[in-house]
Each structure stands twice: as C-alpha cells, then as structure tokens.
C-alpha cells in the first residue's frame, strides 16, 4: 500500500484497531440483551443482584483496559491501579453518604420547634457519619462532599493528581521494570494503611457504606437503579474503549509501544520518555478512578481492604489472562476471570468428591486460579486473546499489536537486557 492511500479519521481508527466496531457492537448487543432480561424492563431472567454483578464486571473491564494501556502498551507493570479505582469509589462514596445522611438529618431536625442552623446540620451529619469511629467532626477532606459536581470532579482529579505526582517522582528518577512495579505496590500499601486508620477522615476500616442508595432516587426500586448503573457502566466501557483505541492508534500509540520495547532508543529519537509515561499513567489512573466511581455505588460498600495491593495484582492477572497489548484482551480477561471467580466462590461450582477428600471450590478456587495463572504465563503468554489470533491468522496475516511471547526471540523487555 502506498502512504498516500492511508485513510483518515474514523476509518483510520478502525484500520488501526480492527476490533473497535466488533467490540462496540458486541457491547451494545450485550447491553440490549441484559436489558430485555432484566427485572426492571424485561423478563426478569437476570435477577437484580446478578445485574449488579454484571455492571460491576463491566467496571472491572474498564479498569482492566486502563491497566492494559499502561502495562500492555507502555510496559509499566503498575501494581497500584486498584488504588486509583478505590479513590474514585471513595470520592463518589463521600457524596453519596453525605447527601443521604443530610436527608436523614434534615428529616429528624424538621420536627424541632426552631429551624436548625447550617452549623447544626453539619454537626449532625458529622456525628451520624463518624459516630462509628468515635468522632463527630467532619474532616476537611469532606469539605466538597455536599456538592455532587465538585465531588465528581474529585473522581478524576484525585487519582489523576496522585498518579501525576507519583509518576513524576518515579519516572524522573528512571525507575523502571520490576523496581517500578514494587514501588507502585508500596504506594498502594501506603494508601490502604493510611485509610485503615480511624483518623484518616474516611471512617477507617469501616469504610463508606450504604452507597447503593442514591440520594434523590430513593423512590426508585433497586432493579431500576441497578439497570441505570449497568447502562452507565456499559457506556463508560464503550467510551473508554474508543478513547484508548484513539490514543494507541496514532503516533502516540507508536511512541508508547516503542517505549515499552526500547525506552533508551526512544530517548535518542528525542522523545521525552518521562512525559509520555506520565501521560499514559495519569490518563489510565483517571479512567480507573471513573471505573471505581461507577463500581462502588453498585457494590454498596467500600473499605480500605479493597485498595490492598492484592487487588491491583489481580487486575494485572486479569489483563495477563485476557492477553495484554490488545484492548479487547483486557476486557475479555477481566470479564472472564471475575465472572468465573464469582461462580466458584459463590458456591456455583459443584464440589468434587474424591472419596477421601471433598474439593470444595470455595476453598480451592484460589489454588486453581493461582496455578492456572502460572500455566497461562508459561504456555499461553498471549492469553485468551491468542484464541482470537488463531481465528484471524487465517484471514489477515498483518497484525498490529505486541506479542512478547517466548517464540518472539527478538523481542525482549528492556530490563531483560541488563
């Protein structure tokens, strides 16, 4: 093909990311299907609780997309992305909890002879929210909790700023590879330990709860609320996919993949590598924050345990099982593993009786997951996405995207060259 025949605009996007129309189509179909089966608008075959599970899974898929951008495309194995996810959840949870408590307090103060002052309302809200940790004052970080727009801004600002500051410090000092992974893990650990304290201002290990009750929509049945959130999650996932497809399609995608493959060389081409990494890291942190903000109203509760390092490692596991370096791989992995995990740990999988021992999957699922993860890493480094390759390989020989499998002897991650 000659260079001048290169298409532009949407066509270029689809050419660079052939999975885009397929993915968006499948997502739309899935959303329509679930809607027609839902309790609120359809046959009721999908229960509201399962609808929530599906909605939350979509949020995980979005977080996995963000993870794939930093890891699969830019080569930064962040073991801290669930921290951004959790921060998004905390940010929206603060408004949900504040607004709901405000309504309760207003109701209880309404029967008083003398109308309450603003300070009295604030104090009552503080006492209500922080009674469990033995405090009654609203900490300063709750200063914006009364305003939804401001708190929504926090959903993107706080993860973004944290990623920006942390990334600036880490990338500036040229921390790469395994070192960087461990540093991100340390950041997550620090954050979760800080949140575990009662005086962190976010209710310590109690976390924020009652988030499934959306202020202003109390009259609406949960079935409908759940459906709305499912739609919102699907929309966010679709938009996220589109955004990332656009980012990785152009020259930006080329540069960040080049950074993954040979950072030093990119530097000698004159690109400020740190700036690119920072951009990718921050963008994906923001998206992870948004995913978290959609997830936790469906989960109903958030506590510091959700931010523990292990959660972020699971995110990496999902992406690896799905196949990194391709957007649909991340979505496949997150969806598949988290749904299978729910099935196994929820008692859905039948126990296997060996006569001398009964394998109860609630206990053995993690062993299975751990070992299958090792097997995937060893024998199927392309993950589930590799299955797609088997199919497309017959049609189009040209592939766009990385595969750092063991068969690709020429391709090595830069830190392996040390």
């Amino acid at each position, binding site marked *: *093909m*000659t*260079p*001048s025949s*290169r298409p*532009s605009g949407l066509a270029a996007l689809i050419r660079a990311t052939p999975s885009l129309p397929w993915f968006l189509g499948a997502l739309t179909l899935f959303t329509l299907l679930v809607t027609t089966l839902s309790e609120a608008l359809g046959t009721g075959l999908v229960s509201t609780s399962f609808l929530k599970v599906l909605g939350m899974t979509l949020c995980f898929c979005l977080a996995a997309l963000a993870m794939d951008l930093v890891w699969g495309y830019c080569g930064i194995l962040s073991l801290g992305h669930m921290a951004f996810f959790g921060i998004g959840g905390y940010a929206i949870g603060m408004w949900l909890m504040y607004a709901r408590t405000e309504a309760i307090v207003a109701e209880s103060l309404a029967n008083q002879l003398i109308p309450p002052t603003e300070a009295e309302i604030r104090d009552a809200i503080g006492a209500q929210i922080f009674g469990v940790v033995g405090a009654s004052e609203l900490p300063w970080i709750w200063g914006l909790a009364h305003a939804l727009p401001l708190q929504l801004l926090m959903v993107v600002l706080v993860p973004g700023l944290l990623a920006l500051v942390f990334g600036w410090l880490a990338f500036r000092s040229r921390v790469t590879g395994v070192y960087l992974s461990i540093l991100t893990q340390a950041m997550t650990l620090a954050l979760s330990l800080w949140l575990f304290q009662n005086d962190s201002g976010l209710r310590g290990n109690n976390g924020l709860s009652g988030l499934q009750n959306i202020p202003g929509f109390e009259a609406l049945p949960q079935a409908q609320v759940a459906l709305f959130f499912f739609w919102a999650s699907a929309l966010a996932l679709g938009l996220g996919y589109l955004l990332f497809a656009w*980012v990785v399609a*152009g*020259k*930006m995608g*080329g*540069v960040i*993949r*080049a950074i993954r*493959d*040979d950072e*030093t*060389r990119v*530097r*000698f*081409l*004159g*690109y*400020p*590598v740190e*700036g*690119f990494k*920072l*951009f990718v890291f921050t963008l994906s942190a923001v998206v992870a924050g948004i995913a978290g903000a959609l997830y936790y109203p469906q989960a109903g509760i958030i506590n510091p345990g959700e931010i523990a390092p292990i959660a972020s490692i699971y995110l990496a596991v999902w992406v690896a099982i799905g196949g990194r370096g391709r957007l649909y791989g991340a979505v496949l992995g997150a969806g598949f593993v988290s749904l299978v995990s729910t099935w196994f740990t929820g008692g859905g999988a039948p126990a296997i009786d060996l006569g001398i021992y009964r394998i109860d999957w609630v206990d053995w699922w993690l062993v299975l997951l751990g070992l299958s993860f090792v097997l995937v890493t060893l024998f199927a480094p392309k993950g589930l996405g590799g299955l797609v390759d088997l199919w497309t390989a017959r049609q189009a020989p*040209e*592939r766009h*995207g*990385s595969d750092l499998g063991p068969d*690709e002897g*020429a*391709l090595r991650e830069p830190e392996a060259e040390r």
Partner: protein
Amino acid sequence: MSTAHPKAQLLEVSGVSVSFDGFKAINNLSFSIGPAELRAVIGPNGAGKTTFMDIITGKTRPDAGRVIWGPRSQSLLALSEAQIARAGVGRKFQRPTVFEDQSVEDNLMMALKADRRPFRVLFWRPESRDRERIAELAETIGLAGMLGRRAGELSHGQKQWLEIGMLLAQDPQLLLVDEPAAGMTPAEREHTTALLRSLAEQHAIVVVEHDMEFVRRLGCKVTVLHEGAVLAEGSLDHVTRNQEVIDVYLGR
C-alpha cells in the same frame, strides 16, 4: 574538503574523563568537528569509542570536561538524552535497534522531525508532505516497497538501512554512526559510502568503524582512539604510518 573550514566548530569536546569503578574509560579526551565534516573514529576494542558516543548523546555523564555544542555554544552536559537529540544530535547504534513490533512506515514516522511533546504527539496526524518525505526516505534506503512490513521481519541489512533512514528522518546536524556497514553486501557498502559522503556536504558526521577498507573509501580525516584518549589524528595514510598506531593495532 572540510579540514580548512574557518567557521566555528559544531561540537567541541574538551578534557573529558569518565571512569567506571576505577577503570578510566575516557581519559582527558578532546575532539572537535565542524558543521559539514565527515570524520571516522577508529580504535581497538575497549578504546572508548562507544563511551565517547554515550557522552555526546547524554547517556553517560563525564566526571570532568566540557562538551560544547552549536553556534550558541551550549553545554550538552546539562541536557537529557532527549533534549540532546532534539538539539540536533542523531545516533545510529551498532546493533540495529528498530522497533520490530511496528511497521517500517511507523518507525520512520516516529523518527520524522516534528514536535516531540506528548500532547502534540497525541494530536499529530500525518500530512501529505510528511508522507512524501517518508516515501522519499524509503526510496533512499531501498525500502520503498516495504513500508507496511513489520520491522521485525526485515533482514539484518535492511534493519541497518531502516535505522539510517530513521536517522535521516530526524534531520540532525550531527550524525553519530556506529558501524554502519556491518552486515551489508559490498553493493550496499558502496551505497552507504556514497550516502554518507553526500550527507557530509551539509551535516557533521562521525563514523565509528572497524573496517579499514570502508574507512579508506570514505576518504576523510581519521581519529584514532586508544585507552580513552586520542592517539592520532589525520588522513588514513597519515595515521597508519604512525608507529604508535601500528603498535596498538598489531600489539607489542
């Protein structure tokens, strides 16, 4: 042709030293090159050729000395690798390092002179003159029909050419070329020699090479490095007559 250039030097390295754990890789080295000059740097293994390039491109920070660049006499020591590259120093590595996962076109596109800041790159889309420039470069390096191929699928020699193409796409003022002819057929060597000589009419080029025949064909001034310092400088014939150089190359 360029030895008698009266103009100020493009790059001036003076009194540079660097040591790794006590081993002096570069020892009080001084070197300079004009804005349109071809220079070959030769020397035995461990003479410090690669480290010398590392210092100019900012990969290694010297313990002492100065590296002055360009008409504004800017010190390169305060700049990062990327800043030095943007200032106009291009480098071709000994081992071809192209981005094997991406197409030849993408490799060239990435190297093409343009704003390198992240947000500019994010919104950058190729215009027709960029495409023309790439087609032209592909023609020069003999990869015109292979723009859509993955760079990883190229032969070793083609990768060398692609890397030279990327170097040209950057449009640097100074080209540091490490063993450009390695793995090339005699015809390709001929082509490379011609290319370097024609480039040298407008650019400063430093070629590090082992192959004496290739150096002879370049027909330029030669700098001999030994133990991190300049041992001799002059035409190839002049330096090959130098007893010290003979000792170093043939051993004592």
